[in-house]
């Protein structure tokens, strides 16, 4: 670089600084005065001012208003300011290359913007901390608004880069700074929104999304800046009539040709890096619908083929809790995904076919309960879906978008939990607390009539069983009741028709129950006087005839029981030692032989008489288990 060129660069930089200095100073002064302005504003609105509110509001205003304003002001005046004032010709006829001129002007604009943003943010944080505000916590608060966890500062920074690039670009061929600012702001917001939409629709996992999004944003900004430079290098850029077309093409190209998009499409969802939240086996046993997530805001539903054919993504981000219909034709699920693919405030209830077709909404606008994991159960006739959102019961109809939505508070089902459907599919069953005292009740809700009925009620403490779904609905509901004067329990069946109570077992130490089919009740219980450490017997009762037989015996207290369809084999999760000892998962064969499985594996369900599907939530894995040998064949990952 010659001495003249470097002298020219210094001269341009000096001129730029002199011209941008008012913007910089105004920004810093505004940042310093902002607490006063905000305090005045808040006082006018509320009548009183809290110092921490002012401090927090200041940071928000800085991030959302002041910083973009700096960037727009400097970016738009970079070239359009010169064109508007008519000084651009003077500058362009100096003996310096247009590239050098552009680079110095754009770099100085960026530097002043950055300096102004840094100074005002630092001042904002300092004042915030002095005033007792949350300081940097505001940034983390912003993250809750984002679908990209942990990326907010980066995204904000890159958005500002995009904003700067866009305003510089429009500033290249528009002669008014205000027009360039408006066009740049509009274009960058539009580009940013389209990008978010694209990335959101891509439904990638978090880890690849954030770096790729950063690359994409930075790439687009650089493409736009390069287009500005290309235009500027060409004489008469400000008079070209094709400028709007060029602008559109540049933006379209930068969006469409961005290679990271292709990378994005090609990046498969990696189950190995996701967390398994829920899993449900299809009635035919051919697939498992699972909720996978990398974070609280990103669950999605995958379908794992049990024949080992692989895993398919069924729904997009922010969907959860799949539930198969008894005929296996539909999967109901809960969604928190807006049409944009972003997080919605409310929940919705939807249904989709296992092949991914027919996705439709049944109910929307369901208030969520953040302390509750919403779930759905399909009616035995596969026409309706009941959903428990925490405080609301929703009953939707598959194929329709009309639903019954009931707030549980103030109804007989207040504080209730969805149990399932009656076997005739007409009523929804809930377990609820007895108002004003200890005890439990079972209530039914008729979604057609909108009426409630208390089916059964007890003052005794009780627990419910039926860990595994009852696709055919309940003809009778197994209930475990605590004995008042001992630690033993009684097992009873409550009729879903009339609420009548039938004793099944008395004085047992536990009561794990499974209803493998509508005619059979299986339970595993040890004798009460063993204190939960003795031998449990797995008993099968024919509900039609009332006859019972002992299927097998196993050491320890059984916490889970899953009977095979032929009722010759069973899965148990049992505790053989002290209460604080871990649970052991075991398979029991027809001959009574017990095969222990690796720790943490529990049954999802059975696939035929001798194969079981098992899951370990601790390791986020699903496997097919040979019930005869206990051998596990991983299905996912």
């Amino acid at each position, binding site marked *: 670089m*010659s*001495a*003249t060129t470097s*002298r*020219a660069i*210094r*001269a341009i930089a*000096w*001129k730029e600084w*002199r*011209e941008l200095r008012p913007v910089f100073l105004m920004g810093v002064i505004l940042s310093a005065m902002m607490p006063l302005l905000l305090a005045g504003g808040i006082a006018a609105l509320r009548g009183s001012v809290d110092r921490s509110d002012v401090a927090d509001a200041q940071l928000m205003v800085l991030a959302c208003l002041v910083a973009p304003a700096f960037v727009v002001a400097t970016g738009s005046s970079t070239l359009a300011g010169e064109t508007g*004032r*008519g*000084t651009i*010709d*003077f500058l*362009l*006829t*100096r*003996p*310096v*290359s*247009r590239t050098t001129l552009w680079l110095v002007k754009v770099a100085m604009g960026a530097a002043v913007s950055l300096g102004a943003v840094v100074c005002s943010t630092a001042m904002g944080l300092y004042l915030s901390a002095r005033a007792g505000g949350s300081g940097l916590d505001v940034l983390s608060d912003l993250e809750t608004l984002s679908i990209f966890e942990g990326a907010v500062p980066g995204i904000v920074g890159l958005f500002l880069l995009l904003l700067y690039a866009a305003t510089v670009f429009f500033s290249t061929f528009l002669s008014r700074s205000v027009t360039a600012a408006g066009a740049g702001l509009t274009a960058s917001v539009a580009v940013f929104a389209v990008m978010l939409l694209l990335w959101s629709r891509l439904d990638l996992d978090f880890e690849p999304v954030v770096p790729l999004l950063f690359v994409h944003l930075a790439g687009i900004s650089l493409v736009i800046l390069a287009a500005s430079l290309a235009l500027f290098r*060409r*004489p*008469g850029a400000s*008079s070209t*009539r094709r400028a709007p077309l060029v602008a559109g093409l540049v933006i379209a190209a930068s969006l469409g040709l961005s290679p990271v998009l292709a990378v994005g499409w090609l990046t498969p969802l990696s189950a190995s890096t996701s967390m398994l939240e829920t899993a449900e086996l299809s009635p035919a046993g051919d697939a498992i619908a699972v909720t996978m997530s990398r974070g609280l805001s990103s669950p999605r539903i995958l379908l794992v083929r049990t024949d080992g054919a692989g895993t398919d993504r069924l729904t997009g981000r922010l969907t959860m809790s799949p539930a198969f219909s008894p005929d296996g034709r539909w999967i109901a699920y809960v969604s928190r995904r807006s049409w944009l693919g972003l997080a919605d405030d409310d929940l919705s209830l939807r249904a989709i076919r296992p092949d991914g077709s027919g996705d439709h909404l049944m109910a929307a606008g369901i208030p969520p309960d953040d302390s509750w994991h919403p779930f759905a159960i399909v009616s035995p006739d596969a026409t309706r879906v009941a959903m428990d959102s925490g405080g609301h019961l929703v009953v939707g109809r598959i194929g329709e978008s009309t639903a019954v939505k009931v707030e549980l508070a103030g109804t007989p089902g207040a504080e209730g939990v969805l149990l399932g459907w009656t076997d005739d599919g007409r009523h929804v069953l809930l377990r609820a607390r007895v108002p004003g005292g200890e005890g439990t009740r079972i209530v039914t809700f008729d979604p057609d009539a909108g009426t409630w009925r208390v089916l059964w009620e007890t003052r005794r403490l009780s627990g419910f069983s039926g860990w595994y779904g009852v696709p055919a609905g309940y003809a009778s509901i197994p209930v475990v009741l605590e004995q008042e004067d001992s630690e033993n329990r009684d097992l009873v069946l409550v009729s879903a028709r009339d609420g009548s109570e039938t004793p099944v077992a008395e004085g047992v130490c536990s009561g794990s129950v499974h209803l493998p089919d509508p005619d059979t009740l299986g339970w595993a219980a040890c004798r009460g006087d063993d204190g939960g450490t003795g031998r449990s017997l797995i008993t099968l009762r024919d509900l039609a005839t009332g006859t019972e037989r002992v299927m097998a015996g196993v050491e320890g207290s059984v916490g889970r029981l899953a009977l095979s369809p032929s009722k010759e084999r069973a899965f148990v999760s049992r505790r053989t030692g002290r209460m604080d000892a871990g649970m052991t998962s075991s398979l029991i064969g027809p001959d009574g032989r017990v095969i222990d499985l690796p720790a943490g594996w529990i049954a999802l369900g059975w696939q035929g008489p001798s194969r079981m599907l098992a899951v370990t939530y601790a390791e986020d894995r699903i496997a097919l288990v040979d019930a005869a040998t206990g051998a596990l064949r991983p299905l996912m990952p």
Partner: protein
Amino acid sequence: MTCDNAITIDRFTVRYGRQVAVDDVSLEVPRGSIFGLLGRNGAGKTTTIRALMNLTPPTSGRLTLLGLDASAGAVRIGRRVGYVPEEPRYYDWMTVEEILGFNASFHESWDAQHAATLLKRLDVPRGRRLRELSLGTRAKVGLTMALGARPELLILDDPTSGLDAVVRREFLETIIAAVQEEGGTVFLSSHLVHEMERVADTVAIMDHGRIVTSAPLERLKEQTRRLRAVYPDGPPGEFAMPGLLRVERAQHQAVLTLSGCGPATVEQVRGTGAETVEVLDLSLEEIFVETVRGGGSHVRDHE
């Protein structure tokens, strides 16, 4: 194109959509000359000059300054060419001193002493901000910036437009003095014909985007003349001769304005039955008006 030309314009055209601003213009400006480009407002003068300064892209054609392509060699041209635009706009927050310093940063050949002398001669206050200066004083600042780098070629686009007569004269005298000192070339565009007549040694007339006449001023004056022909029986119905710009008929005479007018033309007029033919000289303004009004003919001088 020869190396003796400071500017060579070859088949230069500028179109804005369907509108043709400059139409197939070719022009040569010899080194050391003061070349005047005359034309009405909107004739295409400014477009031509902006293209020479690489501010407007040509639709077609080639422009060369000091042997360098106007577009490809813009930076090198900028070091050797001084330019004063029609409506100079500078950073009005700068003082005269600051803008001269700013401008000096770009020029290796900047002569601060020369610039100071010019400022003194033109009576420009150095410490005042540009926004506080009159239009004429700002034009003088522009001229100082153009001349301070001791350019080989000075391009002025109607620089005295809007200035009062005193400033105009001062301005032009400065240019002439500078050219005489340096032996440089001046390419001056103007619609003020009197001015042009005083300083230019070569003149081109541009109209509707085309060069209609281009010749050394003296030759242009020699060749563009008015002939008053007397016809006792009245002038003929038609005059068919090359370079005829206008005919005014009276009962016994006709006044013909011709470009490319020589002894042969006089004889040709006599041959139309004229009893006497009187040759009248024209001022540059009259030549300009007649040329522009008559649509002109191309008189090229390739000396």
